[in-house]
């Protein structure tokens, strides 16, 4: 009798563990997921000319080298997207916009927690470091936007 209860508990424990591993792996495939730091960031890579891998590496680098900034990134960034442009305005309305209103990323859109990085498929240390610096910088801008609103909401 006791043996059968023990067998049932073991079965469900193993099943639970397998489920947790499957969930962890599937969430990590489309995003950066660090459950121990309660950090989940969606990553929209540029399939044709980008690399999600260097974005994930950049986030791990920030975690290792600058835990304070990492906490800010986890709080104030929910999506990192690779793009080939940031739209700054409409040239039909405003003449003299830099690049006709289309500039290279990085950029941040206020009112969101999304930051945009320039698509880059090169997977070198230099790219990872550059991306890490840009993520920290633009997470700070998101924090600057959201902090007064968060305080007001409380």
């Amino acid at each position: 009798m006791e043996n059968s209860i023990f067998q049932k508990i073991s079965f469900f424990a193993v099943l639970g563990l397998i489920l947790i591993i499957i969930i962890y792996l599937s969430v990590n495939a489309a995003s950066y997921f660090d459950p121990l730091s309660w950090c989940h960031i969606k990553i929209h890579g540029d399939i044709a000319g980008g690399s999600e891998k260097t974005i994930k590496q950049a986030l791990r680098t920030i975690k290792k080298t600058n835990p304070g900034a990492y906490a800010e990134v986890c709080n104030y960034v929910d999506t990192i997207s690779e793009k080939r442009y940031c739209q700054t305005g409409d040239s039909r309305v405003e003449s003299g916009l830099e690049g006709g209103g289309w500039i290279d990323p990085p950029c941040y859109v206020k009112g969101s927690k999304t930051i945009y990085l320039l698509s880059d498929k090169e997977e070198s240390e230099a790219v990872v470091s550059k991306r890490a610096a840009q993520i920290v910088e633009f997470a700070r801008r998101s924090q600057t936007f959201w902090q007064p609103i968060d305080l007001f909401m409380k």
Partner: protein
Amino acid sequence: MAKRLIKIFLFLAIAGFVGYRYFYYVDRDSNCFIKIKPSYLEFSASNIKEGIKILKYAVPEEYEKLCIYVDTINPNISCGGFQGGCYSFYNDNVKEIDISTANHDFLSSTASVIAHETCHAIQFQTYGREGIDEKECYAVGNKVMTAVIDF
């Protein structure tokens, strides 16, 4: 009997979650309720909801107008083409705008297109067909774009 009740409850809970997640924008504090029609090709409700949220927090005056003059968003491809928008005064519902943005579109662009089409909804509901003026709405879209971008 209990099993049947649980099934009905589960069905309603899932249907409610899917409806709320993909087909409605609800902001009770601002009395803002917008229906988002199903999008067969682009499945872009989350991009549109993000765009609305950007207006709410970064350009509140445009958000206020959206909540008053728009009650339905059609995310399917319309006269504005892919990644564009459209306001058709032939629609039965004068509070409906078309926003054809894709799911991973650039968010400032989505917010700008929503504000642009809201501008047309205001023009038509206030002055009728003669009130439609593209220049005024391009200026509104540009205002949103320049207000929200940080580079």
